[in-house]
């Protein structure tokens, strides 16, 4: 009999020296994909009963705490973040609360890889791969949105001012990681955007 074991998509990969931001993979994150109508009161109250928090209904926002966080993905789709060990338990609670309500909840913990980028210049580094203006006030902590990053689909979550999580589909993990490693090298630091010192 073969044994099922979890291996993270970026296992054994370490960031090269000389990066302007710090980079690591988050491996212990459980993710649940939740779909249902945001205008359906029965759906909203059932989810609140199971999770103990209101779903974020405003576009590109999230709700919750570090342990249990819900990201808005669309008008009818949310991504629930929790510790990997808790995912099965939360999924079961959700499914039993949502019995009879038109909805869908699936454990997608292994669907995406999570890359955490931290440091002063991380917005500028990410902006090399996307057309979004990440210096805009909209991208404050708690904001999340899907984006086109280095030509692939990604999900961006602003954790703190200088801490970003980038979610990419598992098969793209190595590509996204290598892209960030290449663009985050210290000599490649961008000083074009935002507040700058006056030239001497």
């Amino acid at each position, binding site marked *: 009999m073969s044994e099922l074991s979890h291996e993270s998509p970026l296992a054994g990969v370490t960031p090269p020296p000389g990066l302007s931001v710090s980079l690591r993979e988050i491996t212990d994150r459980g993710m649940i994909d939740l779909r249902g109508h945001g205008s359906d009161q029965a759906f909203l109250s059932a989810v609140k009963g199971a999770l103990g928090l209101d779903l974020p209904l405003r*576009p*590109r926002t999230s709700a919750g705490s570090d342990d249990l966080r819900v990201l808005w993905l*669309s*008008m009818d789709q949310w991504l629930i973040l929790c510790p990997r060990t808790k995912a099965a338990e939360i999924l079961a609670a959700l499914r039993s609360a949502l019995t009879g309500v038109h909805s869908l909840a699936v454990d997608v913990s292994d669907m995406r890889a999570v890359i955490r980028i931290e440091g002063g210049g991380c917005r500028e580094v990410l902006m090399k791969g996307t057309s979004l203006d990440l210096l805009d006030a909209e991208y404050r902590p708690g904001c999340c949105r*899907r984006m*086109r990053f280095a030509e692939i689909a990604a999900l961006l979550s602003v954790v703190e001012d200088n801490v970003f999580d980038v979610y990419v589909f598992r098969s793209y993990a190595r590509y996204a990681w290598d892209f960030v490693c290449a663009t985050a090298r210290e000599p490649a630091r961008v000083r074009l955007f935002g507040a700058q010192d006056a030239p001497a």
Partner: protein
Amino acid sequence: MLVVKCPVCGAEGDETDFHAGGQAHVRRPASHDPAHVSDEEQRDYLFIRINPKGLHFERWRCDRGCGKWFHAARDTVTLEFKAFYGITELPPADVIAEAKGQWAEYFAKRLKAEKQA
């Protein structure tokens, strides 16, 4: 470079964050009366498109946002977007009034049919 704004989630961005889905308001004849679809109707549905110089109506998808389809009215000469509106909606009345040629005919027919219904 086109700047597109999704009317569903309000995301505004570069055209590469969106996906152009061709001409808007194309109706599949078989959806309404499958038993009586003429070859001409099916041909028009599959292949015949309006290709105006000026105001045009298109489908777009908020590809890197909420993932929803929506409609846009765009001028093919100036590339200016005149309106973004929902996938089940008709354009705002003032934009319909600007439509010319085949689009003007289409909307006149469509509005008349909706009034009768």
